[in-house]
């Protein structure tokens, strides 16, 4: 079925999201690093629903854990919760105007941040750099562009593969 997004686009975007997680940045930007992986997973949960969504998000999160050296299972849990929330409110989110959708994504990222602080608090990690509070904001501002970019890539593929 040509409606389904191509596998390379799904895996490629997730791999890119993982890459941004560890890309060396100047110290100032390090704490602000937007969670691109989360945005990409939100996009796929919105556009291409499937039963495997949560499991795929969990696996991607597990890879992120290994990559970033966090406690194994922490990001996996956060990504699974994120995708679950998106699937739960998918009907509403899909028909929101762009700014409202971005705000909703921002709220979910904030929820993700709270979950992270909670998990790390339990694990006994130290206090985070104060910049992390701004990361969801940056993610919100980035969301429309991620959405448009992935949408354009997906639709172009669909047009090409549909016989005229």
């Amino acid at each position, binding site marked *: 079925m040509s409606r389904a997004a191509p596998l390379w686009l799904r895996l490629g975007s997730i791999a890119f999201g993982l*890459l941004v997680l560890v890309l060396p940045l100047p110290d100032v930007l390090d704490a602000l690093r937007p969670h691109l992986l989360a945005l990409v997973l939100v996009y796929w949960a919105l556009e291409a629903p499937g039963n495997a969504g949560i499991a795929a998000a969990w696996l991607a999160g597990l890879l992120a854990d290994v990559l970033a050296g966090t406690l194994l299972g922490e990001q996996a*849990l956060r990504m699974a919760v994120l995708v679950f929330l998106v699937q739960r409110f998918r009907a509403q989110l899909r028909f929101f105007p762009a700014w409202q959708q971005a705000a909703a994504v921002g709220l979910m990222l904030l929820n993700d941040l709270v979950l992270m602080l909670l998990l790390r608090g339990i694990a006994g*990690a130290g206090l985070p750099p104060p910049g992390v509070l701004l990361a969801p904001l940056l993610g919100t501002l980035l969301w429309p562009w991620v959405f448009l970019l992935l949408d354009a890539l997906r639709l172009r593929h669909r047009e090409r593969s549909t016989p005229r």
Partner: protein
Amino acid sequence: MIQPGAPAPKLSEAAAGSLPLLACIALSAVLMVADHRGELSPRIRATLSSAVEPLWRLAALPSTLWRWGDTHLARQQALVEETVALRRELQLRDAQLARLEAVAQENARLRELLGGKAGYRLSVRMAGIVDVDLDPWRQRVRLDLGGADGVEVGQAMIDAGGMLGQVVEVSPWGATALLVTDASHAVPVQVVRTGLRLVAQGTGHSDALRVPNIPRSADIREGDLLVTSGIGGRFPAGFAVGRVLAIAVDESGLFLEATAAPAARIDRGREVLLVMHGAPEAAVGPPEVAP
């Protein structure tokens, strides 16, 4: 779409919908607890690490290219200047080394008199730091040497300044090392001036170490140099760990707590030295004395 007479579908639907999530949460919880307590088999992490190794290398590519370009495409003028500076430094080091040789000979003679055997020779191997930003909450680095190059868990890592950390995880083509400043790291140290034995812990900040539980009667001052004591057998003795910056009474009021600045250049530098257990490749420390 609810059929009349169907038994309350909403509740069971909701339960079925959140089942995958619950499974994920349970799985994550088990993993996190196991990982936190260090009970996870190192092979699991090593396998996963090799799976994401290409991503690490890819992320480090921009800075690798930049450095390559910096060396290979540098202007003639810049190269000449650098060569002159390096030559000058080499001369300085040579002079210091010559002096050190005399000290080493004297040291060896005195050791013979005392009947001591322990030397300060050890073999090291240079490893590069893969330029990726790991979790900013934890002080870790990724090295580009792995099990295939003979790196083992527990190896000490040093740089020109002193003690840098230790290897905590090894996969075939890379290794992860914990820095001395990580909040979960502790190293047995000794005050050079008095010989007082202490333990230096990381703080999670790359510019500070914490030395807790110092008896109030202990002789320790600002500016004291801390070196590894070698107790515990994990770190070789005699490497600089840090210099005491401040001393204060701790919360209980029964002990002192010192803050120290790490001696190694924690967040600078691209190369580190791994202290090898195997055959020597290059040596640091005083040169060998001719018998």
